[in-house]
Structure formats: structure tokens, C-alpha cells
């Protein structure tokens, strides 16, 4: 079917401004791991942008403070974490059973379950459903999974107009930006930037930069779309195997609008999103709200089961997405990555993310969880620099509500990267690799080590100034001295001092 055959379902009094071709900003970050630059290079534009860094730091400080206060008031927080990680582990260790259960019960309740092996499968399934519905437009609830499979550009190219309905997603969609956080995706954009985007794209010249006015503008912009567009796409925070239900957690009410008003609903969910039983939500909802936004409970949770006659969409599809997840499941250390409930507590706590923001991670999943999830979803073919985008301080592990030991997975992935590199013949001539091979040789033989030490003293002596400090080194050494000085070697090595001391004692 061609685009021309798709009858428009609704006519808007004001033509949606999204269709106007606007040149994307030249510095638009790339969040496709197959195309993005390596982390150390991707991070440079951010480090040189003080406004961006200020926006990110401010947002993170606010969420962190709220989270800390609400976690501290919870006397059973550690017990909740243990239960949450236990529930997620149990779901993963019997994932086949639970998914089949979910499918059976969702189908019995009137839903249709689709299985997508990879991103291309999922995109095709969704577009096929939309074409069957003769949908020319679709409203969307924020879903990271749809960003992962790059759904929006695909649907647009297929002739379906996509309208994001989460405030942050509207800011990004209208401003042609990219998400930099998984809970607050536009945290890098400040109010005057939002004002500029809304004024330009919604045609509101006199809009003020008061967040209240900006939010009201978004409410007006979306109200008719909610009432008129009969097809919606959502993600899922959880799937319940026992009941075949889907759970969506949100704050704004745009989710409820999308889940209630349209005639057809499509929910896309990673296969790992399942929890065994309805009761498990008593743990998951408590830890998610506190970890994600620092609230005792987020304003709205919606749980629905297939189709309810007379209430909400009468056609309901769930697309279960693998896209590399079953391979992560097979890894002993790696499996815990799939416990993630996308709360973003790890990125809020991460000293690296705080400095770099999300775009440098070259993926829709930034921060510590992105550093382990993205390379694995790419089956270690891309994003090999990400496991190094961490100081291994462990702050992410400490706050993780499902106890993912992110440093442990980072180390495992680093060893896989090294293993990959070792197999490349060109590596043999890489100065870093060569240096490490030589170090390996030197450190394993005492006499070679002492000889190298003597040589090193002579070598470094050339660069040591009179104040006893080395201010600059050539070649690889410059990487250290570019930003800091190095103390010159002392007169005596420890070994020499010890030997001399022993001699004196006799």
C-alpha cells in the first residue's frame, strides 16, 4: 500500500508543524551505536559547552536530592532492593515459561502478541498493524524501546505522522533534539531553549519562558490530538505473566490519554520486561518511583489486561522484542543487565555522566546502564569504548534498586573488548599494545625490571626540572602531563633503600 492510499483519519484546524522540513542542527548528536563516535571523542563537544553541563548538573542535583530524602525515609529499603532483584532474577531464570504464560493470558483477554527477533522485525510488525488500521497518524507515550529500534523515522518514512506526547519528548521532537536521559530525556535543554522551540514550532510568538506557560502550551497543542488520533503506541514498564497485563508508569497523564482514548493500542516491550505475578508489583512500583523521580509514588500507574469491552482501545497488540537480549541472558555475569527497570538512578549517581551528559554515550541508553547495555545489545560489534566510560567507583551499584553490579559487568565487557582486540593483527603495531606487551615481559623478570628501572631513571631524568617535577613528556606520556604534572623519581628506589638499610643493620 502506498502512502497516497492511506486516508487521513483526522483533519487538524492547524496543520501540524512537524511536517515542515527543517534542517536538523549540524551538531545534532548521533545516538545510533553503529554510527556514533567513540566515547572519548563524542564527549568533547559537551565538555566544551558550559551551558549544557550546567543544565545537566542542575537537573541531576534536584533528582538526586529528592531520591536520597525518600530512600532515607524508607526503613525497609535494603529489603525492598533484595526482593526487587530477586523478582527480576526469577523472571529471567524462567523467562521462557513466563513469556509463554504472558502470551497465553494476554491472548485469552483479547490481545494479540507479536514476537520480533530484531529491530527491523519490530518496525515492520508495527508499520503493518498501522497500515491495516489505515492510520496516517499515531500518538506515542515515551518509550525507550521504540527509540532503541529507531521507530519514529521509519514510521515517518512509511507515511505515518508520529506525535510524541510526553512533554520532554515533544521538546525533543519539535526541537529536533535527541534524548540524553532515560527518565528526563530533555534535561539538557533549559527553559529559554524550550521557549524558543515552542514559539517557533507552535507559532506562539508571545510565549513566556515560565515552565507553567510552556507546559500549558504543550497541553493545548496535544488536546485535540488525544481526542482525534485513533491509534497509539506505548512501551511497557512491566508485563505480568500471571495475568497477561501490561503496566505503564507515568506522571503527566499523556499515558492515560493514549491508553484510554484511541481505538487501537500497540505496546512494544523488551522480552525481559516480564515479572512473574501481579503481587510482584508491590515491590517493583515502590522501588521504581523512589529511584526514578524521588516520589513516594508517581502520579499515575495504569495496568490493563488485553481488551476490556466498552473501556479503552478495543484492539490491542503487544510486540515482544528480543534484539540481542536472549544473548545477554546466556551470559553468566552479563544476565543481571536485564534486571534493569530503567529508573536512571545509576546515571544520576554517576560522576562521569554528571560531567558528560547523555549524548556522548552514542545510544538512547546513556550512563552506567548504557555503558553495559549498549555494547551487549550490539553484540559487542559496536560501542566498545563504552565499558571504559567509567571510573568503576561503584556509585551506580549502590543506588541500583535491582542490585545490578555494573562495575562487575563493565570489567567483564572490558575483558571481552581486549580479547577482541588481541585477535586483530594490526594491534601488534599499536604503541599502547606494544608498551603493555613489553611491560608484561619486564614485570615478570626481576633482573629485567631492575634494568628497566635504571634506564627509566636516566630517561625521566632528562625531563625532570629543577623543582623535582616533570611538566611535560613526549608521545604517549603527554596524555598524562597535558593536564597534570608528574613528580620526578626519587633519589633511591624502595628496593635500593631496603637493601642499604639491611646492610647498615649488619
Amino acid at each position, binding site marked *: 500500500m502506498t502512502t497516497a492510499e492511506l486516508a487521513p483519519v483526522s483533519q487538524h484546524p492547524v496543520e501540524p508543524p512537524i511536517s515542515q522540513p527543517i534542517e536538523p542542527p549540524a551538531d545534532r548528536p548521533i545516538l545510533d551505536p553503529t554510527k556514533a563516535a567513540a566515547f572519548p571523542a563524542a564527549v568533547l563537544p559537551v565538555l566544551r559547552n558550559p551551558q549544557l553541563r550546567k543544565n545537566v548538573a542542575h537537573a541531576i542535583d534536584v533528582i538526586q536530592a529528592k531520591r536520597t530524602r525518600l530512600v532515607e525515609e524508607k526503613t525497609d529499603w535494603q529489603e525492598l532492593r533484595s526482593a526487587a532483584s530477586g523478582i527480576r532474577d526469577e523472571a529471567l531464570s524462567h523467562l521462557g515459561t513466563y513469556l509463554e504464560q504472558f502470551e497465553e493470558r494476554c491472548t485469552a483477554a483479547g490481545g494479540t502478541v507479536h514476537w520480533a527477533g530484531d529491530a527491523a522485525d519490530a518496525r515492520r510488525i508495527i508499520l503493518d498493524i498501522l497500515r491495516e488500521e489505515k492510520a496516517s497518524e499515531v500518538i506515542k507515550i515515551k518509550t525507550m524501546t521504540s527509540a532503541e529500534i529507531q521507530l519514529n523515522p521509519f514510521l515517518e518514512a512509511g507515511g505515518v505522522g508520529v506525535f510524541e506526547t510526553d512533554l520532554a519528548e515533544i521538546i525533543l521532537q519539535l526541537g529536533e533534539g535527541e534524548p540524553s536521559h532515560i527518565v528526563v530525556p*530533555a534535561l539538557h*535543554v533549559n527553559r529559554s531553549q524550550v521557549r524558543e522551540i515552542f514559539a517557533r514550532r507552535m507559532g506562539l510568538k508571545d510565549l513566556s519562558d515560565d515552565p507553567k506557560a510552556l507546559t500549558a502550551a504543550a497541553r493545548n497543542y496535544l488536546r485535540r490530538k488525544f481526542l482525534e488520533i485513533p491509534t497509539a503506541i506505548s512501551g511497557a514498564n512491566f508485563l505480568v505473566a500471571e495475568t497477561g497485563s501490561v503496566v505503564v508508569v507515568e506522571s503527566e497523564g499523556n499515558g492515560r490519554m493514549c491508553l484510554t482514548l484511541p481505538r487501537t493500542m500497540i505496546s512494544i516491550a523488551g522480552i525481559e520486561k516480564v515479572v512473574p505475578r501481579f503481587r510482584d508489583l508491590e515491590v517493583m512500583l515502590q522501588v521504581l518511583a523512589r529511584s526514578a523521580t524521588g516520589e513516594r509514588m508517581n502520579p*499515575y500507574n495504569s495496568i490493563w489486561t488485553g481488551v476490556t469491552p466498552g473501556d479503552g482501545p478495543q484492539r490491542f497488540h503487544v510486540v515482544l522484542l528480543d534484539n540481542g537480549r536472549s544473548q545477554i541472558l546466556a551470559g553468566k555475569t552479563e544476565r543481571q543487565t536485564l534486571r534493569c527497570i530503567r529508573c536512571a538512578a545509576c546515571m544520576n549517581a554517576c560522576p562521569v555522566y554528571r560531567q558528560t551528559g547523555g549524548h556522548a554515550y552514542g545510544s538512547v541508553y546513556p550512563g552506567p546502564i548504557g555503558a553495559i547495555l549498549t555494547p551487549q545489545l550490539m553484540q559487542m560489534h559496536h560501542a566498545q569504548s563504552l565499558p571504559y566510560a567509567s571510573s568503576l567507583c561503584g556509585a551506580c551499584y549502590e543506588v541500583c534498586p535491582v542490585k545490578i553490579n555494573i562495575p562487575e559487568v563493565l570489567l567483564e565487557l572490558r575483558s571481552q573488548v581486549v580479547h577482541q582486540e588481541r585477535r586483530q593483527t594490526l594491534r601488534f603495531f599499536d604503541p599502547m599494545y606494544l608498551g603493555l606487551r613489553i611491560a608484561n615481559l619486564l614485570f615478570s623478570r626481576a633482573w629485567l625490571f631492575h634494568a628497566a628501572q635504571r634506564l627509566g631513571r636516566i630517561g625521566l631524568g632528562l625531563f625532570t626540572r629543577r623543582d623535582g617535577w616533570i611538566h611535560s613528556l613526549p608521545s604517549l606520556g603527554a596524555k598524562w602531563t597535558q593536564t597534570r604534572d608528574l613528580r620526578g623519581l626519587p633519589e633511591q628506589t624502595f628496593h635500593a633503600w631496603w637493601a642499604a638499610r639491611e646492610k647498615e643493620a649488619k
Partner: protein
Amino acid sequence: MSTSSESRQQILKRIYAATGSEADQPEQAAAQWSALPRGYIQAGSMSGEARIERMVERLREYDAEVSECEPEELAAAIAAQLKASGKRSIVAPAGLPPEWLAPGYDWKIDRDLQTEEIEKAEGVLTACFCAIADSGTIVLHHSASEGRRVITLLPDWHLCVLKASQVVETLPEYFARCQTPPALVTTISGPSATADIEMTRIKGVHGPRFMNVILVRDDRSKTRLN
């Protein structure tokens, strides 16, 4: 590209290869699920009065208006709140007790009301399934007295009747009340809100912007309502 049923087979094959098809069976799953650690607080420890106070405190933190009444005063309390609101056209689910529908208002009883009609209404009056004091959450299961999901979504003002006997302290206590899991649940913790612009909390994005709760003190009355 493959069809969905081929994809299904392949995905499940990969999953069972990873989990071990011997171990990944319903019986093992049930046994291990039952043995999960659940050391967190399940039942609350507050007295009845403290629990109600906590609930009211949380609702007010969310800017909801709360008023209390005795069970026999309920109809009058509803009429008083409607009058104070100044609103005229009010949606009501079909299963509300008739005495709740105070005379003199443009009641729109939801027997398959069109969305446009609900959108035009100024408010909605419903009962609820239960409430959780810890987080100030109101839970709807969308029964005949709570109504379809859409009626508590579009009108800008939600007048909700909550009985004190419906208030539990903790979230697990609510789940304990769901022996048969419900098909539809909406939990409401304060009016819709966003903090997407510079983390400034703004209330009232898409859901009702105003909530008004009538708390029926059936907990201290001799004739307990259920």
C-alpha cells in the same frame, strides 16, 4: 525478515538455550517464586486514626482538597462540595448510589457517553476501590461505581468518595486485598505533573488538574459500611 511465528520459535529457542529448558518449567518457576526473599514491610503498624491522618496529610501535599463526613451525611457532603465547586455538568458512572446524585446539577450518567460529551463536562464524581496512606494513592479498579477509565481522565475536576475503611497503610496491603488480580487498575497519586523543564514541578498537564476527596468516617461509626 521472518514471520512472527518463526520469530517466536527462534526467540523462545534462544531463551530456553540460555535458561536451560529442563529448568525453565512452570513447576520450578512456581517453587522458586515462592521462596523469594520478602523481608520488606508488608503490613503497616499505624493505628487507625494515624493511618487516616497520614492519608489526609499526603492528599493535601498533592494539593487535593479533603473534607470529612459521617456515613449518614454523605449525600449532603457531596451536595456541599458540588455547590462550592460552582460546577454544573458532572459525569457519573452508571453504578453510583442514586442518593449521591444531588438534585440541581446537569448529571451525565455514563451509559456509553461519547468522548466529546465527557470532554465538555466540568467534573466527575466517583467512588474508588481503596487508598494507600503511605503514598497518598487512590486506587481505581473501574467497577460500576468507579466508572470507565476515560471519565476520570478528561474532566478537569475529580470528586472522589473514599471510605475510611478503604484506607490501607502500605502498598503491599493493597495487593493483599487483590486475591483475584483485577483486569484494570489506575492509581492516582496527586494531580498529573511534570518536571521536564528544569526539574520545576508543574501540576496539571493532561489529567484532571483538581482533585477533591470526601472521606467518609465509617471507621468510628457503629454501623460499619463495607
